[in-house]
């Protein structure tokens, strides 16, 4: 293969039918792969009449044209489905080894439909594709399942769910390669609803570049910039993603105790520096990645595993008022084994803590209660006691107890580790996120804090919409290729375009890619409009719009969302209600969604 394998594997778990269908090359050119291809296929397969946890929903696993090419960070893959947490379109992607291995089986995508009568797994190897019994694995954790299915780093790779997915927890993740995660939005629950425990892949095919000389040159140039960037060559390898903990805290944008404050007094105790100094055993890299940001850690009790990443350290740390790094790290391990999204889990526990402190939830929970984390996480995965409410995510939890405004979520997806009152552009990113509040779909940490590509005023609003839109489009195309966003800290889209050209033999410019990003973003928007979402959903929790930050460098600020949103719709060529105009759809070759606009 040169870029695309040209095949889609289509499996119906209800009937047991296994089919290989050709990849539509025009579709591939327009949407590339990964998140883009997933969204395009989902548009046709899952309409507004489909309940997310019903057999009619589908799971679509996708790789991109550069996957498995050995271009730096070309290991990632995507899953697309309708989210049981948000009801929106959902995409989630992950690194590790599974994505590369799946591509080597000779498929660009795997569509899983229907529901098996009893627990099953799918095995894709050079010997063929088979649906196998997995009853003996049902109820087991991710770690045990991965070992039982003989995970073998670069030869045989396991993707599976834990008990959380089996129990249809709305914040359940799909895990791969033991501790990597397709985390957000509850894709694990969709997999559980299909009685699908695992997908095991072994592949032999190679993604060989069409232009080997140009590919070699791009490898060299990309490697040079990754080595030259202090972020990708020093900060991330040395301290992991939590390197930004102290940075975000210092500017007053680290949400604390369910976003009641924006600075955490214990930030240094849960920072990347502290992780490196106290619990780090070694670094680890995903396939074909020189950055090595993964932390292999060990706590005082002798437990060992991956993490915590910045977001996880924040979610069980500042968000819950906890500065006990061992407790946070073990909470992270526990979520990995049970198959839970750490951001939503920690954020939801923080919400429960505030509900309890305000007397709205009859429980002795409170901020700082590190001792309660293991029990709450376990009970969530198994839907026991209060865990049955936590398993619904923070919005449904807070609504049940009469205070939906205490859920720090957008479109019911829990916010990640940035207080947008101290980063106005980030507020617009969260409010307009197609899968809800998300830092992976246009993170403004780059321009508003890290000076990537240039430092802009984090409190300014004029002109922000354009920068947010470009970052959203860029993230969408990176997720469609599929690359890692950290590579983008050192190399820009012009590198991705030239590498894609070398791999596929088809010419792409940087702006061709940016147009793909805009196309993907707009299609996702249309999907949500078709589901009944509207301008009213492009908003933030009331706390962030009306409660000024009480102290610190962001003191007195709320998010000035309305003017940014108006500018955003105008920039994107959408009308005042946030609906893409017909001429914009035509420009993006999205005429097939026109009926949604006209309705």
């Amino acid at each position: 293969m040169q870029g695309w394998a040209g095949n889609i594997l289509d499996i119906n778990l209800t009937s047991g039918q296994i089919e290989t269908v050709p990849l539509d090359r025009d579709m591939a050119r327009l949407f590339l792969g990964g998140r883009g291809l997933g969204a395009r296929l989902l548009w046709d397969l899952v309409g507004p009449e489909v309940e997310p946890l019903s057999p009619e929903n589908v799971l679509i696993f996708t790789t991109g044209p550069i996957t498995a090419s050995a271009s730096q960070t070309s290991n990632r893959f995507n899953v697309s489905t309708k989210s049981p947490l948000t009801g929106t379109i959902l995409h989630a992607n992950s690194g590790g080894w599974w994505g590369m291995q799946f591509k080597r089986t000779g498929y660009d995508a795997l569509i899983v439909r229907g529901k098996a009568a009893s627990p099953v797994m799918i095995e894709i190897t050079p010997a063929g594709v088979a649906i196998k019994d997995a009853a003996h694995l049902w109820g087991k954790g991710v770690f045990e399942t991965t070992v039982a299915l003989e995970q073998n780093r670069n030869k045989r790779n396991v993707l599976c769910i834990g008990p959380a997915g089996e129990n249809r927890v709305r914040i359940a993740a799909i895990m791969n390669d033991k501790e990597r995660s397709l985390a957000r939005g509850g894709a694990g629950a969709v997999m559980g609803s299909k009685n699908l425990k695992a997908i095991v892949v072994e592949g032999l095919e190679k993604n060989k570049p069409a232009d080997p000389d140009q590919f070699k040159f791009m490898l060299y140039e990309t490697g040079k910039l990754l080595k030259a960037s202090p972020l990708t060559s020093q900060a991330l390898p040395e301290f992991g993603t939590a390197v930004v903990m102290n940075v975000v805290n210092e500017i007053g944008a680290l949400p604390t105790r369910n976003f009641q404050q924006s600075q955490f007094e214990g930030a240094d105790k849960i920072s990347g520096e502290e992780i490196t100094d106290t619990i780090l055993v070694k670094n680890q890299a995903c396939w074909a990645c020189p950055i090595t940001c993964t932390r292999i850690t060990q706590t005082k009790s002798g437990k060992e595993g991956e993490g915590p990443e910045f977001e996880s350290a924040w979610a069980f740390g500042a968000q819950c008022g906890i500065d006990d790094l061992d407790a946070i790290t073990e909470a992270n391990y526990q979520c990995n084994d049970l198959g839970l999204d750490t951001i939503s889990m920690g954020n939801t526990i923080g919400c429960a803590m505030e509900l309890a402190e305000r007397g709205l939830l009859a429980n002795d929970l409170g901020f700082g209660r590190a001792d309660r984390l293991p029990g709450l996480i376990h009970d969530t995965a198994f839907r026991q006691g209060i865990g049955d409410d936590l398993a619904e995510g923070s919005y449904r939890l807070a609504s049940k107890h009469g205070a939906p405004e205490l859920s720090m979520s957008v479109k019911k997806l829990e916010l990640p580790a940035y207080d947008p009152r101290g980063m106005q552009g980030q507020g617009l990113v969260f409010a307009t996120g197609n899968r809800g509040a998300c830092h992976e779909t246009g993170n403004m940490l780059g321009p508003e804090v890290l000076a990537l590509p240039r430092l802009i005023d984090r409190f300014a609003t004029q002109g922000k919409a354009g920068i947010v839109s470009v970052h959203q489009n860029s993230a969408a195309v990176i997720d469609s290729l599929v690359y890692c966003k950290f590579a983008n800290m050192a190399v820009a889209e012009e590198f991705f375009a030239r590498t894609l050209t070398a791999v596929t033999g088809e010419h792409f410019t940087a702006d061709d890619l940016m147009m793909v990003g805009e196309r993907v973003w707009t299609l996702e928007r249309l999907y949500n409009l078709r589901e009944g979402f509207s301008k009213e959903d492009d908003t933030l929790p009331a706390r962030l719009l009306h409660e000024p930050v009480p102290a610190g460098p962001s003191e007195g600020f709320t998010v000035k969302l309305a003017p940014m949103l108006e500018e955003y719709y105008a920039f994107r060529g959408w009308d005042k209600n946030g609906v893409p105009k017909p001429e914009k759809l035509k420009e993006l070759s999205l005429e097939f969604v026109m009926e949604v606009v006209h309705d």
Partner: protein
Amino acid sequence: MIDQRLYEEFRDIGRDIFVTGLTSSHGGNMSVRVGDKIIIKRRGAQFGRLKHSDFVVTNFQGKDSGIVRASTELIVHRAIYEKTSALAIVHAHPRTAIVLSLSRDEIIPIDNEGSYLLRKIPVVTVELASGSKEMAEKVSEALRGYKIIMQRGHGCFAIGQTLEEAYHWVSALEEVSDIILEHKLLGEEMIEYRKHSESYAKW
């Protein structure tokens, strides 16, 4: 329409472009995209002395009487915003780069910094050199693959997410060009120190 923060960015970068000799007193122009509008320097305003009144807010596309005051090159700026993901544009007249553009179809840096930042700057030829449709088309098309390009004998167009970013490419281009010219004047053979440098021509 133009807020104080954005005005100060225009003013400071305009002054820097002029004092570093990247354009003459009244030559060149710059703009940013805000929503579906373009904020562009008015025609004839001095780069080094920009005032609040020196800006025109005009529609992203088409009919707008604001064009009577806008820069001659507005048509080019519009085309660039339409065809690329640029959020800011700087057009200047860096003299050494113009000299090189008179005899080359591309400027390939020989210094380390310029190689990292730019790799190659294509040179496009336009018969009607100011504010023409031909110019808008050729310049915007070239910028789909590059962040800065030269128009032969005229000047450069650079794009970025901010004015500062676009200005950086202009400043880097002139440094690159000075080094090429001075090395050529020195007349000594270059000792290549960059692996795969022959591939920059294909960038």
